[in-house]
């Protein structure tokens, strides 16, 4: 029972990472209807930036907002410079451009920071009072940070003018443009937010999976699984599904398929959801007018 509880709770902790990544994916999907294959690699690159800032001697909690800011700007720039040009291109072109971004981030990280595995310290000391046998201090910290960030995102979209404008631009670009919302910039801001959310996921994941250029490939797959399971146009569904996928992965790895086939859980969830329930658990069914 104790072992089971431990697996369950640490599943929630990894689920926190998937939840932030899934919300980032949903943010981009909602605004542009693109599935961002480069999300994981962008997060990985941001994590490297955090790592090098820490190497320079900055304290962790100063690095955290700095990295989010860098990631935000990078996201906006990528949208303005690259993604905008294929905004109305066929799906194939969009997918290929994202794969190009993925490859570039991956190789640049290897080029600049090297391919060797680096350890990144956790900001939560391992002997902190809130650590326990069930949930280490870092795991609890991950959950807390993710929930706090998601709360900020919620407050932003619910209570600010800019958040309202962004939701309007995603919902109905033509009408928003008519009432004076600058839709193009709203999409770029959406990209910025997604990149910053990804950076949170990367920085929380790094102490667990270690820092190396391919660290996010597996994590991204779980992020996709969570986004689809929650319904790809519903951020709260995706966040909840992130925790569900984390628990599912951990329990399946411990009791069902073994650690070797953990990634296959993501594959099964992805193929299962898109085949049998494309709208996910909390999404709306997309109906297209011919």
């Amino acid at each position, binding site marked *: 029972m104790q072992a089971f509880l431990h697996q369950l709770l640490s599943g929630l902790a990894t689920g926190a990472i998937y939840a932030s990544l899934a919300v980032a994916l949903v943010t981009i999907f909602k605004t542009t209807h*693109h*599935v961002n*294959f480069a999300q994981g690699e962008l997060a990985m690159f941001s994590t490297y930036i955090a790592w090098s800032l820490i190497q320079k001697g900055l304290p962790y909690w100063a690095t955290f907002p700095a990295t989010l800011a860098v990631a935000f700007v990078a996201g906006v720039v990528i949208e303005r410079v*690259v993604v905008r*040009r*294929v905004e109305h*291109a066929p*799906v*194939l*072109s*969009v*997918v*290929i*451009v994202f*794969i*190009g*971004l*993925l*490859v*570039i981030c*991956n*190789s*640049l990280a*290897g*080029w600049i920071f090297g*391919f060797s595995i680096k350890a990144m310290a956790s900001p939560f000391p391992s002997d902190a009072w809130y650590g326990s046998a069930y949930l280490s201090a870092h795991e609890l910290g991950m959950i807390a940070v993710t929930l706090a960030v998601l709360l900020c995102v919620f407050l932003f979209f619910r209570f600010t003018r800019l958040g309202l404008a962004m939701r309007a631009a995603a919902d109905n670009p033509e009408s928003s443009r008519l009432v004076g919302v600058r839709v193009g910039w709203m999409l770029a801001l959406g990209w910025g937010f997604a990149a910053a959310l990804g950076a949170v996921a990367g920085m929380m994941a790094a102490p667990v999976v270690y820092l190396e250029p391919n660290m996010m*490939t*597996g994590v991204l*797959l779980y992020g*996709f*699984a969570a986004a*689809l399971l929650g319904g790809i146009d519903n951020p709260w569904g995706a966040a909840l599904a992130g925790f569900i996928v984390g628990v599912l992965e951990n329990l399946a790895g411990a009791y069902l398929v*073994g650690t*070797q*086939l*953990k*990634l*296959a859980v*993501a*594959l099964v969830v*992805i*193929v299962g959801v*898109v*085949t049998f329930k*494309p709208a996910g658990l909390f999404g709306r069914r997309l109906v297209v007018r*011919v």
Partner: protein
Amino acid sequence: MSRGAAKIVGLAALGVVACAVPFVASSFHVFQLTQIVVYAIALLGLNLLTGFNGQISLGHGAFYAIGAYTTAILLDKVGFPYWATVPIAGALCFGVGFLFGLPALRLEGPYLALATFALAVTTPQLLKVNALERWTGGVQGLLVEKPGSPIGGVLDADQWLYFLSLGVAFGLYLVAWNLLRGRTGRALMAIRDHPIAAATMGIDTALYKSLTFGVSACYTGVAGALGALLAGFVSPDSFTILLSIHFIVGVVVGGIASIGGMLFGAAFVTLVPNLADRISQAAPWAIYGAVLIAFMILMPTGAAGFARAVARRLFRGGNQPI
């Protein structure tokens, strides 16, 4: 000279060069040429599916892996002759591709890309599974014996494998060309361009789409089988997501929905790593990434489309190719 005649002369010249080069090149260069031919077969398979039928696959590395492992297992564990393993690998991949194509019928655009992406990321882990280690060799993989040349006096083993691959590639190109220029090809492209209109005209879209998936996987599986014979070993870490991205790069550079361009695309992905490796280990991939984005924004028809545009300038008139 008319366009048709120019085309025939060009193809004949390419054929003569392709047959002559292995006799003057070093055995390493023959190895590279064989690799290009093998990749061209895989790219042709992927392009049938993605370029002509509009189903995006980011996971063709998985079918390449199935073909390679089929050959390795049949050679090493069962003792089949090497030439018999290639069609078996193709047939097996056709079956697997057809079955994967059935759920794929319900997936459109980015969703199919996502599902195949997941397949490609998972492939190395699936190949390492302990339960199959007796057959797959686990993390270590399997050694594949290089086939000897049956006409040892004329061709050495490398040259023999080159001509074998060239022959297979030529046959598969003819099949693809025949498939695409007739009724079937028109149906495939109609489904790509407007699935609903295609269905209204009486095209069985479900059947065509899953058959295309099967044929495409079959091509890539045959390439995988030849690739295993060429490389001399198979191991899970040769079949990561990067292999699938390799194929995408080749198709984009050669030209989406072109079959001639695939040879150029294959040459590009084989030779760029050799040239760029000297700068940095990461350089080839940085180049690939830049090329993917630049082609999509500036030259979406790839090298073949560019060549066609030049040819149209030179030989005005004539009918438009597909």
